[in-house]
């Protein structure tokens, strides 16, 4: 599985390694919904650190698409909302 961290590049990750990150993903989701910037930062940093730790750099000269694209490490909640499009908040 290929994961891209925006501004950083692509990483190869085992599928099971990714499963372990689901908890952090739902934390990020609820932080974005609640507009809790501090919680969002912590969860995002945790998620990206886990990707870097369990992944290896994907070949830079490949033209492979990523399975997952993650926000840049210094992204704010507003930027994530922008990435999600104009309607912003995720329903449900």
């Amino acid at each position, binding site marked *: 599985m290929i994961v*891209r961290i*925006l*501004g950083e*590049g692509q990483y190869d990750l085992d599928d099971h390694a*990714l499963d372990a*990150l*689901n908890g952090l*993903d*739902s934390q*990020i*989701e609820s932080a*974005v919904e609640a507009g809790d910037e501090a919680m969002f930062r912590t969860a995002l940093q945790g*998620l990206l650190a886990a990707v870097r730790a369990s992944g290896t750099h994907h070949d*830079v*000269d*490949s*033209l*492979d*698409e*990523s*399975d*997952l*694209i*993650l*926000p*840049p490490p210094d992204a704010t909640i507003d930027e*994530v909302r922008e*990435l*999600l*499009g104009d309607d912003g908040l*995720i329903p449900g």
Partner: protein
Amino acid sequence: MSLMKRISLIFRSKANKALDRAEDPRETLDYSYQRQLELLSKVRRGVADVATSRKRVELQVNQLEQQAAKLQGQAEKAIGAGREDLAREALTRKSGLASQITSLKEQQATLQGEEEKLVLAQQRLQAKVEAFRTRKETIKATYTAAEAQTRIGEAMSGIGEEMGDVGLAIQRAEDKTAQMQARGQAIDELIASGALDDASQLNAGDDISRELDALSSGSDVEAELARLKAGSATQPQAIEAGDGDILAEPEAVPVEGETTEGGRA
């Protein structure tokens, strides 16, 4: 991974939408390659712009540090002259500069970080553009328009994602740089106007500056006087040691010679 999955899908669809498709899919390859080269030069310009801003901030830090050192010197002089009030004022201004310097150094670090990120983004894009070019030539040489479709789709979406990423990186760097340029402009104007000499930015600062100037020129005068006094005390001593006759004789000879020469001329 619901939220992240969603971000991924939207990002990818935007990246793909940005790539126009030509009627002959092989033309799409050339068109896309053109766009990639344009993006590459854009990211290079981005690196240069951020570097320029960073250097400007560095220059400002140097200027303010010099100013702080000058105020420190003034404070020391003022203390030496027993003017604690002036020393306090100079140190107050210096501490005002210190917070400016700290904030500028933070900006400098941010710009440095953006510069490094863009350099890496440029390297990644460069590698992918190179790979795309090779793939493009292979596809054009090997496949008919109909056959090429799938291969082109693969190559295009891979590069499209990278281009979207780099485009975002450039935009974010530009935003950060623009914010800092606005602040940098303000500081340049302050430095030029001399307002930072009075970190308190009160009009009263001018009087104190003058007093400090007067104080330092006053002490310069005193120092000069002291040197002159010391000189006049030692000079006669040295001459006296050589005896009064010697003083009179060598002076008398050339004076005589000169007067005779002058008389002859």
